[in-house]
């Protein structure tokens, strides 16, 4: 290797370059549970603490405090990635969807399938703009959907101005517990939700376009540059 630096030094340079360019994804700085009670404080003080905890939880869900940042697992520039994430088979019975539903009651949706057919509703969604290459596209939209109910085979999403208007399949991602897809973008501007359709194992479909637009509060998504905006129930940060 001639005068090449020792491999430890080269590795340190790789790490330093990564940190300098991408930083850390600091998602750790939150607690998942109340702090332990001090010893000997299990009487009135303990009750006060418990009441406080309950109050905090109630406050959290009513007022929608910031939640854990969800870093994207999107692609870095590469020709090896498919335009959508690798499909994951949908387990049966349907897995629980572990993306946070929106806390506000106004966000919940009425299931549209008929009473005899599959049931479900959009529990939460998050749409995020990523200004990173996706195949031939310069940027892309990440579309997370939390579905509560019967498990479809997949969702098909069409957004005008994204993915050249072609439909994109939202596949279930067991790692996130959500349905997920990416729509390539060729530029900024207004994108319009055209349709969202659930495809069920028996071959039937359910048009959820109205529910999606209602949840979104409209059918338009504004893509700006260089801002990487997010819409819906995306975590803060």
């Amino acid at each position, binding site marked *: 290797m001639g005068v090449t630096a020792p491999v430890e030094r080269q590795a340190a340079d790789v790490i330093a370059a990564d940190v300098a360019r991408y930083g850390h994804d600091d998602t750790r700085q939150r607690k998942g549970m109340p702090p332990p009670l001090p010893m000997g404080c299990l009487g009135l003080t303990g009750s006060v603490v418990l009441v406080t905890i309950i109050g905090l939880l109630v406050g959290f869900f009513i007022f929608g405090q910031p939640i854990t940042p969800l870093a994207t697992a999107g692609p870095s520039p590469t020709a090896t990635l498919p335009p959508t994430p690798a499909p994951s088979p949908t387990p049966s019975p349907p897995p629980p969807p572990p993306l*946070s539903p929106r806390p506000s009651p106004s966000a919940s949706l009425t299931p549209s399938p008929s009473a005899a057919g599959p049931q479900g509703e959009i529990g939460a969604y998050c749409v995020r703009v990523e200004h990173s290459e996706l195949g031939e596209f310069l940027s892309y939209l990440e579309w997370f959907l939390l579905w509560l109910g019967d498990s479809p085979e997949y969702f098909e999403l069409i957004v005008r101005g994204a993915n050249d208007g072609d439909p994109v399949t939202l596949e279930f991602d067991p790692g996130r517990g959500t349905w997920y897809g990416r729509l390539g973008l060729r530029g900024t501007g207004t994108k319009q939700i055209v349709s969202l359709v659930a495809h069920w194992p028996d071959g039937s479909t359910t048009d959820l376009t109205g529910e999606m637009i209602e949840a979104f509060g409209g059918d338009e998504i504004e893509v700006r540059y260089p801002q990487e905006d997010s819409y819906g129930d995306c975590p803060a940060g």
Partner: protein
Amino acid sequence: MFALRRSAAASSAFGAAVAAAHRSQPSALVGVEHEFRVLDDGRPIDARTLIHGLGPSQRDLDPSDPYAYRLPDGSVVTCDGNEIEIAIPPVPVRPGFAAAAEARLAALRGDLEARLGGQRTLVGYSTHLSISVPDERLAHVVSAFVRHYAAAQMLLLDGAQGVGLLVRPRPGRLELGGAYATDRALRTALVFAVGATLECLARTDVGEGSALPVLAPRVEPARDRFGVYVDRTAFGGDLYVSGRETALPLRGGGLTDAQTGLARTWAAARATLAGRVGGPELDEVDAVVAGRQPLPCEYGADIRSTAGTRRRPTQTAYGLALAARQRPDFALAPVMLTWQLAVFLVAGQRRVFAAVPGSQLAGFLIALDAGELDASIASYLGQRGLPRTMSHPEQARVAGLWDRIGARRRLLPLDPPPMARGQVASLVNAAGAH
């Protein structure tokens, strides 16, 4: 195109060799974390303000944690909020694993206290137990664990000062969070957690769990993080005050008592541990479950008197991975080391990267040091053509060789955001007829 295919084939050969080496390793991994409040002259301080001054060891191998330092034995010192945290690396479940984990944590605490100096002291804050679980089974395991094992786990882990149990599905593992526990409480809680998790994991038919009491705790979303929180009062009475006599409501109606639940769940968990752990570890849990030794909530304030025989911590795969290695045709050093994934820079006639799932790290190092991977890595180094880039967690599910890596933090699977109440209920009830 052909060069790309040849590179991919060489990478696949490498992955197959690592997987073959891994097959001889124990399948289940466990990790334990302890968090501490740091008091400076009696006042709590934010550990994030001082950790970088402690200079513990190698930094930045975990792209998701700017505070993490990887120690020579593979353990980690970091911060979690204001608290300072020590975490042992994932270690295989084998006879003596609980005592080894406890000894390693005790040694880490001692080392940390020495670095902090006399004016600053550590106060135990919490314990987090992690057991490897495939992602596709996590929801099932969380559901079964909460419905069957939560109360018993809480009794074995938390003392009277505890608040409750956190059950979190994390990428590749189940994490259980409770009160700070050491010595026998830690060992027994860990052995039980592993047995219970493996028992939940082993079930494929929802009817198999019917022999165990199905509890109906009031569960809450974990605060700020994805997961489920089971409070000490989730079963009606205060579990840590009433202890073994606590009445536990059953899902189908009626009540059982915590002692009965403890005994029955331990019997089920114990059966899964046969051949995996040592007799003394099982005996220790037997004694606590049977009441011959106290539960943590039955202790006085001083639980250190229950210390077992301490063993000197041994080296781990994560510690061994830190050292640079020289092979005939290349040298290698880590650029990323996390529970899920290890990535090494491979420098030979050109530079490439070797990515290894954390669960296969031990097998990878053994095979590497034995020269069993030399041919596949040398073959990859000899390929020229379109570069292959690793940029997504899906690519990290099997060991592979890559020409480039994208942002390291994007190679890790994500923790979903916190859950809402309805989602918690959905998760806990997911298995239906458990």
